[in-house]
């Protein structure tokens, strides 16, 4: 899911009001405390808000628990080897997540390879180069890209991207670069390449907006200092980029997290074939896609348990990626606040 500018800027927003509101309220002298009326309404209110906050807290653990319970059958049977088994055979009741993990990793990494240079370029454009009358509308347009639902991307992918790949791009690539195992195989159009391209479009807005925020958080003084020393614009930007290294890493991780969890757009263009292949033209399967395709019809308990286990793996991966990314972004912006 995309993050808005606001939710990621929160570490900044907290201090937007200035220093005075940051400090915890001063200690109330003991006497005054005794005189304070403990308002019943206050207790109820505090209690209810705390209760709902606790609900959110509990929700995450509830989800993990339910998925653990649901996948207990396959965890028992396959154990950790589930992650390394390449077979997915509902007829023989033999399941393993390796194919899907491979598919998820390849499509997401491909998406990052395409999106990252572009995102950094746009972020630099927005924070360093663009005049403010241009920056705001362009920022908004990029964020609108994030708001488009996955299913619409999928629709566009099926009717526009895949035919284009099948008719123009893949034949060209297989003729000119046919010595590379990456481009072997029949040009289906559907396949890993299509999935990677669609994911890159979906991931670009996230990485861009967070990177832009991180770059903006770096004090102008850095830039002024570099320029004063005679650096060119690019050299200054390079310095800023290296200052923002960890923030950009956080942005990348968040983008990766979104790519990993993306379902509909990928399912519609990846070809749905549980197989590991070195070629980008080959159809594949991701963790999210197999759940979407096969969940309603997993006829045996072991089948559905395996699918829930894949959902659990997805859950764990995205939680870890997001947690790591948030911590990094948060620490970077804190560092620059305090600098």
């Amino acid at each position, binding site marked *: *899911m995309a993050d808005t500018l606001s939710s990621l800027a929160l570490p900044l927003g907290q201090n*937007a009001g200035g220093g005075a509101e940051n400090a915890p309220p001063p200690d109330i002298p003991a006497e005054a405390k005794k005189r304070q009326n403990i308002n019943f309404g206050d207790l109820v*209110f505090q209690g209810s808000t705390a209760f709902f*906050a606790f609900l959110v807290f509990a929700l995450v653990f509830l989800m993990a628990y339910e998925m653990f319970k649901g996948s207990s059958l396959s965890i028992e049977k396959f154990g950790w080897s589930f992650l390394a088994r390449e077979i997915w055979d509902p007829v023989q009741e033999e399941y393993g997540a390796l194919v899907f993990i491979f598919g998820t990793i390849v499509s997401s990494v491909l998406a990052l390879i395409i999106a990252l240079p572009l995102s950094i370029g746009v972020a630099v454009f927005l924070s360093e180069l663009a005049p403010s009358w241009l920056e705001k509308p362009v920022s908004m347009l990029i964020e609108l890209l994030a708001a488009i639902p996955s299913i619409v991307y999928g629709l566009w992918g099926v009717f526009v991207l895949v035919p284009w790949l099948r008719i123009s791009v893949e034949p060209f690539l297989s003729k000119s670069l046919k010595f590379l195992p990456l481009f072997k195989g029949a040009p289906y159009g559907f396949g890993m390449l299509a999935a990677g391209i669609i994911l890159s479009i979906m991931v670009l807005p996230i990485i861009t907006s967070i990177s832009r925020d991180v770059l903006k958080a770096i004090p102008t003084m850095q830039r002024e200092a570099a320029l004063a020393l005679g650096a060119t*614009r*690019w050299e200054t930007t390079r310095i800023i980029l290296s200052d923002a290294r960890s923030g950009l890493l956080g942005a990348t991780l968040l983008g990766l997290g979104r790519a990993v969890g993306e379902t509909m757009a990928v399912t519609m263009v990846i070809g749905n074939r549980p197989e590991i292949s070195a070629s980008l033209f080959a159809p594949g399967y991701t963790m999210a896609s197999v759940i979407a395709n096969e969940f309603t019809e997993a006829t045996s308990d072991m089948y559905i348990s395996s*699918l*829930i286990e894949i959902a659990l793996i997805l859950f764990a991966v995205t939680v870890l990626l997001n947690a790591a990314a948030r911590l990094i972004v948060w620490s970077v912006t804190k560092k620059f606040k305090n600098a």
Partner: protein
Amino acid sequence: MKHGYSKLHYWRKSKSAITTALCVLSALIAIIPLFLIFFYSLSQGIGALNLDFFTQMPKPVGESGGGMANAIVGTAILIGLGTLFGLPISLFTGIYLAEHKHGTFAAVVRFLTDVLSGIPSIVVGVVAYIIVVLPMKRFSALAGGVALGILMIPTATRTTEEMLLLVPQSIREAGLALGIARWKVTLRVILPTALRGITTGIILALARAAGETAPLLFTALGNRFWSTEIGQPIASLSVFIYDYAKAPFSDWNRQAWAAAFVLIFFITILNIIFRLVTRGRYAGNGH
């Protein structure tokens, strides 16, 4: 060459110019897909975007014509249910987080809310299937609403918290100075001040939920008939797009584009409204 400028100087300058140009180019490339998608869904869907689309029911397989009236209502009901589940939790948690800027539990909850926002919607769908569909022994709009509600919580909570924090402390202090109880100050003074921003934030979360497909695949399932019951499967625009896009019938494909256009249009308008409403507030805080 100008007097005094070395070759290195020109090399550095041209490097800078090239990279600047590349950055501008990236920005252009990044925006292209947006316009492509908008343009395509409009041009492909315009043929099917007629009154029938909004008022008719779907026809049997293979017959052309018909519309998505039930899906439009279905999506509306689903996001309504999602709001019902997600709104109270988001609102109160947002208030809690805003009231406890420095608490440890608040920090944990804030962190978990962000983590929740990264969980794929399909995983949320699986959980909703386990906790609603299986016990109820039925696919239902209710299960879909629960899934969408969970998906709305992170966005709505964060927006609520931020909007509340934007209200100047002086207003709170004024209320407390007048002897009003803390909770009344929050509920009757701070909240209404921030209400406009909160509402638009919630509407933004709604817009996102309207586009969700994956979690609905095995909670709300789908319905070819008109249905507004929450205990029964229900149609939705997003699932219809999925079904119609895969199908070979070109009439269905066109209807899918029309539905896609309706969704994008709806979501974009809401996004623009959100930006307009909150821009003024941010500008005042030196972002």
